[in-house]
């Protein structure tokens, strides 16, 4: 083992590359026609690769590869791992079988959501937690009294999402035999190169899709394997802007975009209970004690929940991103955090946070004010909205098992 000081010094040069490249960067850079990069948690990530519009249709009509390596990943192992995660997160981990994945969230003592993410049960005592923000001190501090080992493995594990109607066909052509048996939220290991890749039937698009996790050094060969297999199935590399459209249609929320995580909130009133951001269905009051439990249940009993996150359908076809929501066209009751014209639903949709009771018991007479900039002039539009359930788009192919080939 390298001496600690020597290790520290070897890392000094990180400042020379303040934007790290993901394990897939070489391929992304080679494919990129737009050279349109942004920083995702300190990594170069593409807004687009060739054309956002067409990239979106790759997700919905053929298949798309999206590099999710910058997503923060923690590994939790040990004989108490399940018990530990059950105390940490709001959903019941005892119900999460080996080889399964579930979407979950975790809260501070006041029940305020620290983040949402996906929990992968790789083995009885081996889990991977994926999320948007960084939580190592929180995870370590929560581990007192549990026999667990927690490590951060963001850089070590390359991850890519393969999403779209031909996603299964691509995997099949790539030789991942047996992948057809995977049901939604199920994972399995498959041989790749001289190691293995974990494939889960998960994604952020609401479509048929998979996520592949492999050691960083296997990333390039994994990409090539998929890319070659995908040539007959319309496989395209995509950037975040296309994915974002798909995730809005699927009704998924993004931390620090659709809600503010408690650790990032400079203003205390921005913190949110799970029930205030549409995550009430994750909370399992029947399971053993978990962090934030009492505060969440108290707010439910006392009726002190202040906000609600809802799906909106807006009349007209102008996206309402950032629009203020009004009741009776006058009283300000909330904010649209994400909005698009949905090509798949042919509807004008949005995700919004409203102050209760609006959006909860009062859902009529709601409006959004859209400021549409058209050739240096705002067209102010007051449009009626309807609170609708999410997802905005529900695709049978997402859950069909065995999956279809297109």
């Amino acid at each position, binding site marked *: 083992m390298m001496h600690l000081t020597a290790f520290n*010094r070897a*890392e*000094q040069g990180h400042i020379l590359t*303040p934007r790290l490249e993901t394990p897939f960067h070489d391929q992304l850079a080679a494919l990129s026609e737009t050279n349109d990069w942004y920083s995702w948690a300190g990594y170069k990530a593409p807004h687009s690769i060739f054309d956002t519009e067409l990239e979106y249709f790759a997700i919905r009509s053929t298949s798309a590869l999206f590099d999710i390596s910058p997503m923060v990943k923690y590994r939790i192992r040990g004989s108490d791992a399940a018990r530990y995660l059950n105390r940490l997160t709001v959903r019941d981990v005892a119900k999460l079988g080996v080889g399964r994945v579930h979407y979950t969230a975790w809260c501070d003592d006041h029940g305020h959501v620290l983040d949402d993410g996906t929990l992968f049960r790789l083995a009885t005592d081996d889990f991977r937690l994926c999320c948007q923000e960084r939580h*190592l001190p929180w995870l370590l501090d929560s581990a007192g009294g549990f026999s667990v080992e927690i490590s951060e493995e963001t850089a070590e594990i390359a991850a890519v999402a393969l999403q779209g109607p031909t996603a299964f066909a691509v995997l099949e052509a790539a030789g991942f035999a047996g992948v057809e048996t995977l049901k939604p939220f199920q994972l399995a290991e498959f041989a790749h190169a001289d190691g293995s890749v974990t494939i889960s039937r998960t994604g952020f698009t609401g479509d048929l899709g998979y996520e592949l996790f492999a050691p960083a050094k296997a990333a390039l060969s994994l990409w090539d394997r998929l890319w070659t297999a995908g040539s007959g199935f319309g496989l395209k590399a995509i950037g975040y802007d296309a994915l974002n459209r798909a995730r809005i249609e699927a009704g998924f929320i993004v931390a620090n975009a659709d809600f503010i995580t408690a650790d990032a909130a400079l*203003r205390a009133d921005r913190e949110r209970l799970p029930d205030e951001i549409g995550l009430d269905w994750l909370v399992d009051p029947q399971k053993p004690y978990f962090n934030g439990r009492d505060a969440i249940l108290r707010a439910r009993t006392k009726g002190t929940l202040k906000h609600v996150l809802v799906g909106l359908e807006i009349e007209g076809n102008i996206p309402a991103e950032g629009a203020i929501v009004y009741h009776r066209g006058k009283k300000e009751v909330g904010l649209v955090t994400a909005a698009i014209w949905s090509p798949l639903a042919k509807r004008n949709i949005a995700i919004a946070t409203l102050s209760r009771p609006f959006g909860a018991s009062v859902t009529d007479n709601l409006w959004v004010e859209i400021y549409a900039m058209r050739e240096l002039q705002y067209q102010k539009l007051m449009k009626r909205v309807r609170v609708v359930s999410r997802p905005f788009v529900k695709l049978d192919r997402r859950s069909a098992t065995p999956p279809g080939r297109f």
Partner: protein
Amino acid sequence: MKKYDVVMIGGGHNGLVTACYLQRAGLDVIVLEKNAWVGGAATSRELTPGFLYSNCSYVCSLFRPEIMRDLELPKHGLQVISYEGGAVFTRDGDYLASYRDHDSHRREFARFSKRDAEAYDRYARDVTRQCRFIQPLLMRTAPDPFSFKPRDLQEMLYLAKKFGDFSPAEMAATLRFWTMSIADFLDEYFETDVVKAYLALSGIIGTALGPMSPGTAYVLLHHYMGEVDGSVGAWGYARGGMGAVTSALASSFKASGGTIRTGADVAKIMTHRGKATGAVLADGEEVLGKLVVSNADVKRTFLKLVDESALPERFVHRVRHFKMRGSSGKLNIALDSLPEFPALPSGSSCIRGDLHFTDTIERMEKGYDDWKAGRWSADPFVDMMIPTTLDPTMAPPGKHFVSCFVQYCPPKVEGNDWTDADRDAFAETVIKQISDYSPGFRERILHMEVRTPREIEQEVGLTEGNIFQGELTFDQLLFNRPVPGYAQYRSPVRGLYICGSSTHPGGGVMGAPGRNAAAEILRDLRHAPSHMSSAHDVI
């Protein structure tokens, strides 16, 4: 004999801020400055040809942007430049850098501890929350809790409401923060010595307390609540040195018709029947004024300039016991070339920021132990900056001005007055420490100014050389600063006001005390302060 509307004693930054606001309100103001130059502790001095020294204060963040704007300081030459970060060197030959880029900053911390790297955001959030609470209080006169005047009641209510808006958890956090030691506070977030040492420095600068002394967490906040152009907590260099702040103020003051007399050393504040009537200079000349405002610290003002017989006994007692202890010294150095730090990779941005050589809190605390024993720290804490890496105006091309703030440095050496030999030995301690990390540093020195509390008191007039005109501990803040019952810039002597850092909200080149004092004076004169902006909203 001419009688001015206002006689300002001292031309430091707060005195000049007050003078500017009063002159702009139509009053006839004269500033009396004992030195041949204005600026107090915000000066740029050419002590060796071609080099400008920021020879007291050396960085800028706290100076309120509202004041810069009200007094048109940019028009009068003030420019503040953000700088890039900095580093603390470790004894094993490594360093911990601070970078402006969020992810680089995290990766740098991760070299030492992955946990600490990911703890920084929560730490920054908590400190920022405290800053957001205190920022609006800076530009308001603290209420007198014993007064029943409508305005005091209203201000108490404002404070209570601000505090009352907190959740119980936030209230607890605030109370803890205002009273904890910086070491304890940092322990709640971080595990690595060097990370804590780097962050702790803001909790002890200018303060005669160690990092383990209660109250130092607040001192840290005092250094975080500034900004450069809206970037809260950021620090910058005043282009041309800290004298650029006061020369812009002086220029603004003169442009609105004010009078500055340098070389005018005030020996006494004249009083007649409990009212201030002017100042007597060292040569006996009298300068008459309807009002007198003192920019000098509270001890100098009331224990030296005002006759004790004109003051209430308890007031004098409180002033005497106001904590204003000298704890720091300063080396200002002209260098022939940029110093080398073998630990830093070439081209590192760290050299353009603050450099430290103290890698554990324990070393800082031991430095404080020396101070308690009446000695300067054998292993001092040095905040070293090289503004000429960003500012081309302060030294000839290729040459550099180095500012070294040094702590701890006692007001007396084992009970005796400082001697020149002590001063030189103190300087040697510092140069030796720097040379340990920068071989050849000594050989590059072209000129050096060494300032112990003795020199700072003699020249700048700060009692014991205390840079804040009184320590920033909770017992000496808000309506207790400097003396309970006299926290509103007034004094027991009618017509005599104080406007320096001894008053709320305290020290640093902030200008808020001077601005608030002007507001109170104008209130007494029933003059609407329409030319004075309120604090920018914290939204």
